[in-house]
């Protein structure tokens, strides 16, 4: 595979040597009203339809063409397309500002010309979320949420009701690389997964890669969720916010220096704990239960070629029972980025990224007094370069070095406590990577995006490292000093994604990618929990490896108004991790002795029909898939359905602009129930009725289905301010989706056992939010 890519590369480069005299146009595309850079806006030459490009993460584009007179088309979804004549006889810079045509009070969006990017782009397995749509999709308790919306896409499955964990093409929840302005977010959920850490007020762009990942991304097996924050309005000061039933939020943005720099600060806090005050129970009355988060960003453009961006996120969850227990956990991230445009062809970005996740659990009882803490610290230095070699080749290459510090657990207590002070050794590791990729327009019909990523992992001392046998017993112990490498792994990851255009409205695509993962989440609970523990690859844990092939057919209908795609994927997974029965994962020096290793496979078909334009828009996504694991110690070494296996997964989203002020939206989902292990019999030991089990995940929970509706009423347009109301009903027909099923002795009929189903949100949940902007 690697050699094939290299050959591609050589052929590609040699072609361009014979090219005639060419010039390059470059620049930045922005929103005319706010000055926000637009990511993925397209620039095209009208006279040469196949010659086009899209802006990168910083709104920068570079387009090369033979000398001549042309008309440039600048377009972006939800914006008016602009045509600009150019006379190309030298390299030149064109900065463009586009007008948002989807201005909320306008119904007709005619100027917004649909394009056929989906047909021509070589990238497959990618979904981009439109933030306007995210804001209209109804969600539980009115708290709009990009992670919940993402799970309505084919191939992306929710980990369960009230859970922001998600599974992509059969991958586990920890196999998603979740990035917020390039910083890894370790725990993307608030309050045990009922809300995501992403405040959609602060978000500019969301993309999820399910397959054919570009070589610049690495470190996780299944997907990349790339979330970018808004830069802030560099024209005017604005304040916007919302008051909801359980939370409120506010955002302030404005120029630091007009057209040169801006800032944005967005914050929100829940107030469920206000309701606790009403409780008759004195303990609950004095309890706390809330989260808050803050997103902040600032940027400054020194000149056309130099810009600096600072962004940060801080979030915390606090749960406490009066004078008894307390717990809090949170993420903090910070990113410093420096953009430099060397010339019209070469764009550079240097990033220094910090990420921290920690949790604290405290008990204040005299017998059981303790404080347990755990944390992860990352420092990451990245250099990414984009070089527009010619009209046929755009190269991307870069390096990054990521240093992890993991403090798995630390317990401190006072003298009257039953607990000892315990500190589990910290672990240190470097994840390093170098990559190169080429977006090659091989012909008018064939486009190939291919690349190679070399990833290295180094586990460092100081510390002592146990090696365990298959039964989990210590075989040997090695001690390493500071700076000594305890274990290292090197992996070559080829990436390929290509598109062959059959005609103006259809194309076929093919992709292959290998991904590796060196940081692994250990949790033996089925929902996301603050006490989730991360470990790195080591002398016992090998890097997880995934190979995925996928192919798809893409077809647009009705002048590109409807987009249809059908994709098939097959994925092989190596070095997957599971736990021994009765595994003790928390604050355990020998946690690696609790693990067993196996393999997995996942395959499926995804169908997607989307209407992006018009008064009525939305999509239908359907996935038929299978995900299986294989562990020697489980199920007699045979394949068994993974927890995230879902046979059918259907989502339907519709948004309708009823009048100038009213818009309606609705979501329907249907999913096969989770694969679960149910008892196949019962017996008695220790005076207790106990259940016996045969095969792992041999049963299915009942299927889930749910209908949600929402409506938005825009206030009358005032010069100075604007307001809107969002109404929603979650689970309109009150369907009971099983959250968990437990087996126990019957409470009503003595001497028998029963299955007890617990549901949350089993009744329609109304919500209302008032939003304002001035």
């Amino acid at each position, binding site marked *: 595979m690697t050699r094939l890519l290299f050959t591609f590369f050589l052929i590609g480069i040699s072609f361009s040597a014979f090219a005639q005299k060419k010039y390059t146009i470059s620049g930045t595309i922005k929103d005319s009203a706010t000055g926000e850079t637009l990511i993925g806006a397209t620039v095209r030459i009208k006279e040469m339809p196949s010659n086009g490009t899209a802006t990168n993460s910083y709104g920068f584009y570079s387009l090369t063409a033979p000398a001549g007179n042309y008309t440039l088309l600048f377009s972006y979804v939800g914006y008016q397309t602009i045509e600009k004549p150019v006379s190309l006889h030298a390299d030149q810079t064109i900065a463009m500002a586009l007008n948002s045509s989807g201005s909320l009070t306008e119904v007709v969006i005619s100027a917004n010309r649909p394009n056929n990017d989906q047909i021509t782009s070589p990238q497959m397995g990618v979904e981009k979320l439109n933030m306007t749509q995210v804001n209209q999709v109804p969600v539980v308790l009115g708290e709009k949420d990009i992670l919940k919306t993402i799970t309505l896409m084919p191939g992306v499955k929710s980990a369960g009701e009230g859970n922001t964990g998600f599974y992509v093409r059969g991958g586990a929840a920890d196999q998603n690389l979740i990035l917020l302005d390039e910083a890894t977010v370790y725990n993307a959920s608030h309050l*045990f997964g009922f809300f995501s850490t992403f405040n959609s007020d602060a978000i500019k762009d969301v993309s999820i890669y399910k397959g054919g990942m570009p070589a610049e991304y690495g470190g996780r097996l299944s997907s990349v969720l790339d979330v970018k924050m808004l830069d802030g309005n560099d024209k005017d000061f604005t304040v916007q916010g919302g008051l909801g039933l359980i939370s409120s939020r506010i955002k302030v943005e404005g120029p630091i220096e007009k057209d040169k720099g801006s800032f944005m600060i967005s914050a929100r806090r829940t107030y469920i704990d206000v309701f606790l005050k009403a409780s008759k*129970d*004195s*303990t609950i009355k004095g309890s706390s239960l809330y989260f808050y988060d803050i997103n902040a960003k600032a940027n400054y453009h020194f000149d056309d070629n130099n810009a600096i961006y600072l962004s940060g996120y801080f979030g915390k969850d606090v*749960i406490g*029972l009066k004078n*008894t*227990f307390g*717990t809090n956990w949170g993420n903090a991230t910070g990113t410093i980025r420096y953009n430099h445009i060397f010339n019209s062809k070469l764009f550079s970005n240097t990033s220094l990224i910090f990420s921290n996740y920690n949790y604290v*659990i405290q008990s204040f009882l005299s*017998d*059981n007094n*303790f404080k347990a803490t755990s944390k992860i610290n990352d420092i990451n230095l990245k250099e990414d370069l984009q070089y527009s070699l010619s009209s046929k080749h755009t190269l991307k290459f870069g390096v990054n070095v990521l240093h992890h510090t993991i403090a798995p657990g630390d317990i401190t207590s006072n003298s009257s*406590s*039953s607990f*000892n002070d315990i500190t589990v050794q910290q672990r240190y590791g470097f994840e390093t990577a170098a990559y190169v990729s080429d977006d090659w327009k091989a012909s008018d019909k064939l486009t190939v995006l291919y690349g190679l990523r070399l990833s290295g992992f180094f586990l460092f001392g100081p510390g002592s490292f146990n090696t365990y046998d298959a039964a989990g017993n210590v075989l040997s112990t090695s001690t390493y000093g500071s700076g000594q490498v305890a274990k290292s792994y090197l992996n070559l990851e080829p990436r390929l994604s290509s598109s062959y255009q059959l005609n103006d409205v259809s194309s076929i695509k093919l992709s292959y990618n290998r991904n590796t993962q060196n940081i692994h989440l250990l949790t*033996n*609970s089925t*929902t996301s*929990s603050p006490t989730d523990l991360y470990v790195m690859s080591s002398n016992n844990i090998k890097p997880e490896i995934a190979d995925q092939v996928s192919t798809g057919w893409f077809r647009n209908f009705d002048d590109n108004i409807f987009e249809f795609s059908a994709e098939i994927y097959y994925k092989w997974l190596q070095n997957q991790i599971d736990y021994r*029965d*009765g595994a*003790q994962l*928390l604050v355990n020096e020998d946690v690696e002795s609790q693990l067993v290793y196996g393999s997995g496979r996942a395959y499926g078909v995804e169908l997607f029909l989307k209407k992006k334009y018009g008064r009525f828009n939305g999509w239908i996504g359907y996935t038929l898939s299978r995900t299986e694991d294989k562990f020697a110690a*489980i199920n007699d070494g045979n394949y068994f359905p993974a927890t995230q296996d879902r046979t059918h997964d259907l989502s339907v989203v519709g948004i309708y602009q009823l009048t100038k002020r009213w818009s309606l939206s609705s979501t329907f989902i249907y999913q096969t129930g989770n694969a679960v292990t*149910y*008892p196949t*019999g*019962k*017996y*008695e*030991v*220790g*005076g207790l*009725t*106990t*259940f*016996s*089990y*045969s095969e792992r*995940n*041999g049963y299915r929970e009942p299927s889930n289905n749910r209908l949600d509706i929402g409506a938005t009423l825009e206030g009358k347009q005032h010069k100075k301010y604007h307001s809107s109301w969002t109404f929603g009903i979650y689970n309109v027909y009150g369907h*009971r989706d099983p*959250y*968990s099923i*437990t*087996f126990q002795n019957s*409470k009503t009929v003595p*001497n*028998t*056992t029963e*299955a*007890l*189903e*617990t*549901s*949350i*949100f*089993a009744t329609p*949940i109304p919500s209302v939010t008032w939003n304002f902007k001035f």
Partner: protein
Amino acid sequence: MKTFKIVIYLFSIFAITSCTKVIELKLGNNTGELVIEGNVTNATGPQIIKLSTNVPFSNTNTYPPVTGASVSVSDQNGNTYPFTEGPSGTYSNSQLTGSSGNKYTMTVTSGGKTYTATSVMPAVVNLDSLSSMNDVIQTSDNKKVVTVYYQDPADVTNQYRFVLYVNSVQVDDIYAYNDQFNNGRYVGIDLRENTGGSSVDKGIFSGDTVTVEMQCIDQPIYTYWETLMQEQANGPGGSVTPSNPPTNISPVTLGYFSAHTTQSKTIMVK
């Protein structure tokens, strides 16, 4: 570390609109497997090994005895104690009283197959005392917790199992702990009866008589009970994927063989 689970369990108290109902499920019928429950303790009196089989989930909680088996226990000094069959699948021996440090081997022959298991009886850790106090979780129910106190020895790893009886009725919960977090400490462990959601008549209340049996168990038996305990802890904190706990019996069948010490104390809850 049950405390972690309690913290996570708190969320269920605040749970927004959760509700439960009993449902009918079509479950498999993998029954008729041999269940061996072998115990050797340091108490005098007959040692009992019980043989039965498992039954379908939908049956009543009555388990058919297995009769006609040949059962014996031997120690590392070459002494063999034959167990004689009594009523309802119980096999007993009155000569054997277990001693700490001894390794015991159980041999059961039933249905043409011979099963063996070994267990080492740990040293006795003294059950110091019991106390009771108001439960700090869900105070409005006026429930109580019973705390068991003991001095954990620092020089060895210890594992414990507690069996809780409220007014002479054994509660459905499993309590298995080791000294991972409190080696060498004077330990107080809160035992609360899990009420499994809405039922308010379950639990420990003022005026109840509570008996706690403390067993010192070996490592494999601790893993056995700990696995069962984790599987019991369902709720919004999530649950582990259940499985048959790892047994020390070979070839694998349901049940266990445990050589453990036993002592009990009783308290009147104020």
